[in-house]
């Protein structure tokens, strides 16, 4: 067992022996600090990194350090298997196997931590990151330990001491060294020979006149400057170094995998390499590196076009990888990373989604419910609009989801696809308790259009919410169907229709005229002439609505009827305003052209 490296000052083991005794209050401060450290560590393990509560923990622990350093310059903690000691006294004790700070440090060889005054907020954060337990499945958990992380962090006010344990290496060293040394001992005779040769021969000449050993020729001829770097050369090297990023290494590794795949086509290793690419893709997706993940999918698609190069089985294997990129497990990873608070560019996410296979519709629809950020859901909606065309029923199953926003998003997608196969699902959704969902359904129905969508929109005219009804009215003309006229008339004829707001009534008439044109002209004209169809209290309003309606009928008769009534309408009244408005509307050159 040997010590190998540490970053710290001389270890302060004397303190462990207790030559400097801590006062009760000092001990209490250190104990409190360690307990706060523990709580902070747990909080960082429990909450996602963007949770604001973590900031409070961080501030608390920094405060504890500051309080300690008001009285002392250095906090030296000695690590034992079950204890942490300060000035020879235990400030932490635990025999727990899992949740044990002392053991966690100890098992990786850490034996002393020494904090000095000035330990900053950034360093606190780094130290918490060092302590934080990684999920067992993560690569960090597999490759790193506490000592490695401490080494990488480069603390300014924290030094540490480590024991290295490489029993095998030590044994090897002793064996190898003694073997090599025993192989041949340089004798005085050997030295005499070399001395003799070197003293007698000409420099650089062997016994046979051959060169035996000389400095590198070009250097010895005038080496000065030969190996110096010029300004441009330094610049070029610097630029190369700037490109040594994780991202570029990943790209390089992916390239190596694809090149190997090409080289190994037709061999059993093809499958192994494909497995590796699958896992690479999985890794990238788990980490939200969708730009690079897209590159893999793109190259998969490129390979699939090389039908002469790869066997059918190999092409199918590549295809399977594309499908795998959107299976349930991949979707879980995507949801996790997008919900983690990590900044994932939505353009890269969108690009990745666009490269997925059509078969990924169902898992992607399910993903809609898992992603919290609307920014990413929008990207998903875009791709579902494209993928969902062939499988409306599968997509529309989402309208039965319990989460309102999922239903709403699915309805949006159905609307944008515009396939009438979705109408039945949308009709069901018109009864959804959430207004925003019903409003989206009305919009979707409007986007789908056609008589059947019109029929469904008529149901929305019964909605208890006036905004939904108005919205349905606005979309009804998209139905391009006389069949909706009866429905509209039926509503207008109801005794309670007059109770509705003027704006809604006006909309009813306008829509009725827009769709009905010739067919409703007599009705509108008659109503404008106060036929007594309604009770006298709302006569003016009714007539005004009819006037608005006539404004949508592009016929000379409509204009004439309006002009005829203008004189009789009281100036400034609702009716006069409506008539003027419609006359003006029908008199505009473009409209006039249509009325003739």
């Amino acid at each position, binding site marked *: 067992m040997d*010590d190998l*490296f540490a970053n*710290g*000052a001389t*270890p302060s*083991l004397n303190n462990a022996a207790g030559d400097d005794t801590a006062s009760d209050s000092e001990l209490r401060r250190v104990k409190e600090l360690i307990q706060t450290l523990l709580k902070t560590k747990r909080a960082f393990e429990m909450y996602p990194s963007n949770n604001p509560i973590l900031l409070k923990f961080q501030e608390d622990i920094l405060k504890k350090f500051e309080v300690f350093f008001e009285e002392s310059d250095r906090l030296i903690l000695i690590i034992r298997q079950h204890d942490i000691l300060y000035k020879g006294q235990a400030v932490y004790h635990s025999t727990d196997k899992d949740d044990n700070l002392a053991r966690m440090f100890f098992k990786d060889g850490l*034996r002393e931590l020494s904090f000095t005054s*000035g330990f900053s907020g950034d360093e606190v954060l780094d130290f918490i990151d060092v302590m934080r337990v990684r999920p067992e499945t993560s*690569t960090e958990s597999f*490759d790193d*330990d506490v000592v*490695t992380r401490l080494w*990488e962090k*480069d603390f300014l*006010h924290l*030094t540490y*001491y480590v*024991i*290295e344990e490489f029993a095998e*290496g*030590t044994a*090897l060293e002793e064996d190898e*060294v003694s073997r*090599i*040394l025993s*192989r*041949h001992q340089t*004798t005085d005779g050997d*030295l005499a020979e070399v001395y003799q040769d*070197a003293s007698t021969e000409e*420099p*650089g000449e062997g016994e046979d006149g051959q060169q*035996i*050993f*000389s400095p*590198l020729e*070009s*250097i010895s001829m005038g*080496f*000065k400057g030969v*190996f110096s*770097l010029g300004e441009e*050369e330094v610049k070029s*090297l610097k630029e*190369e*170094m700037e490109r040594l990023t994780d991202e*570029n*290494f990943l790209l*390089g590794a992916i390239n*190596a995998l694809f*090149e*190997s795949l090409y*080289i*190994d086509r037709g061999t059993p*290793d093809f499958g*192994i390499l494909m497995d*590796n690419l699958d896992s*690479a893709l*999985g*890794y990238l997706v788990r980490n939200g590196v969708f730009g690079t993940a897209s590159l893999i999918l793109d190259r998969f698609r490129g390979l699939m076009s090389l039908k002469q190069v790869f066997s059918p089985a190999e092409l199918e294997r590549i295809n399977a990888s594309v499908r795998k990129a959107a299976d349930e497990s991949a979707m879980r990873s995507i949801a996790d990373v997008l919900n983690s608070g990590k900044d994932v560019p939505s353009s890269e996410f969108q690009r990745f989604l666009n490269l997925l296979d059509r078969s990924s519709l169902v898992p992607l629809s399910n993903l809609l419910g898992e992603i919290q950020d609307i920014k990413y859901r929008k990207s998903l909606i875009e791709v579902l609009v494209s993928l969902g065309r062939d499988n409306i029923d599968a997509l529309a199953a989402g309208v039965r989801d319990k989460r309102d926003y999922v239903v709403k998003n699915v309805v949006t997608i159905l609307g944008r696809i515009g396939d009438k196969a979705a109408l039945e699902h949308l009709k069901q959704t018109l009864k959804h308790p959430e207004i925003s969902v019903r409003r989206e359904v009305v919009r979707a129905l409007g986007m789908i259009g056609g008589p059947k969508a019109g029929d469904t929109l008529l149901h929305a005219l019964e909605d208890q919410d006036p905004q939904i009804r108005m919205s349905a009215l606005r979309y009804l003309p998209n139905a391009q169907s006389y069949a909706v006229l009866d429905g509209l008339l039926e509503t207008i004829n109801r005794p309670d229709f007059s109770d509705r707001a003027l704006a809604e009534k006006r909309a009813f008439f306008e829509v009725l005229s827009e769709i009905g044109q010739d067919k409703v002209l007599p009705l509108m004209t008659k109503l404008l002439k106060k036929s007594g169809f309604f009770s006298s209290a709302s006569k003016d309003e009714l007539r005004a609505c009819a006037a608005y309606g006539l404004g949508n009928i592009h016929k000379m008769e409509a204009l004439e009827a309006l002009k005829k009534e203008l004189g009789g309408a009281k100036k400034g009244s609702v009716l006069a305003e409506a008539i003027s408005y419609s006359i003006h509307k029908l008199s505009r050159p473009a409209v006039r052209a249509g009325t003739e």
Partner: protein
Amino acid sequence: MSMEQDNSKARYDGAQSPFRSEVSEPIHKGARALINQLQVLFRTSQIHDIGNVALVRPVTNMMNALDVIFRSEPEFTVRLRGEYLYLDQTRIRYDIEDMASYEYMVEALKEKKIGSITFQQPVTPDDIKRFAYTFSAMAPDKDDSHDELNERLAQRGVKSMWTGAVEEQEQIKFDDLADRRKMAKKTYFQAVSVTRGVMNNIKSEQPTHLKKVKRVIQGIVDIILKEESSIMGLTTIKDFDEYTYNHCVNVSILAMTIGQKLGFDKNLLTSLGIASLFHDIGKVDVPIDILNKPSSFTEDEWEIVKRHPVMGVKAISKVRGLNELAASSMVVAFEHHIFYDMTGYPQTRNKMMPNFFSRIVSIADQYDSMTSARVYSRIPYTPDKALSLMMERSGVQLDPLLFKIFANIIGVYPIGTLVMMDTRELGLVYESNPNPEKLDRPKVILITDSVGKRVTGRTVDLGEKDPSGRYKRTIFKALDPKKYNINLAEYFL
């Protein structure tokens, strides 16, 4: 067994070890900036007077650099030792960009015979200016110049900076060298052991953790950042039983040394160290009877050997799939035989310049392979012959700029070279001179005195001059230690 008892012993031993990096990255950066600014100030003070506006920026920059270091060291000393500058006990790192400033400072201190400059908080801008002008006004090559300089500084009211004498080179004790070797040796063999473990695990398809690999590479990084010669010395002992593992470790050390010269930070050095350690990992899948074949390969066998880069890609993915750490290793494993001119193997569909790491490893790999005795090539090239061959390949197979850096590291007389000096003493080169102008002036372990009598425990620096300004020793002849049965292991292990 009580681990505690064992550990505490190891700890006390460790306390005496000189091989612990006491200084963190921000301070290293501060120290580099300090050297750069001192150089600017010294140069400026020779051209402009003390009130000149040209001094404002370097003085401000220097105050900033001092501020960084003062945050953890209220008093520190920049020291000249041989060809290197130290911040207290730690060698100041520099990268290719700072090389000129660094060399200027080394030469300036040598010229004025000033061995150290101590800074004590608080330093004012006026102190800095007065110091620079007083230093520049000093006559060169004067003995006890530090006392005179200190006196003048005191007269000008500068109390925060003072200087010290140049350390005599003989003061670099052989014991220190032995201590460094001990640590380097330990780390080297740990690396070999860990490499063997990982390669065996991969061969037998066992799960492989990289924790140990990372820690052992970090250990090498720590040593290289302090002084690389002790561990580089170990790469010259090409006498180990298991070529494969030692070769991996040697390539890793040589590659990291290039990285250090380029100014890589320690995390990048670790990545390079791991990637280079695994460069030949694909060979675990090449049948051992082919690898150990004593004669030349048949065409079929050569085809199998040439598959090791692709096998390497697969082997690395088996370790862990793909993550950032595995990615650089995978790239290097795949590309280390693809040359600078994009020839070599494997043949790829898309021709691309190999990654910077791969080009570094390619140089380290060629050098170590050529200078090692392998089953199919019993007689290795001497280091200079290998370098000559590599120079021919520079710009074709090898990156010419990286080769320059490498040649600088290896020097005219590579570590392990047996030399006779004009004093007729015999010695072995153990550390090359970092100054490209003085590549022919390495440090040497003496093995005989001037009459050919064996000596032990003495080292000399060929960069050292006598009071008349002449070099004390100059290499008169270089010889091949193998030819004379000189066992390098006795001196380097």
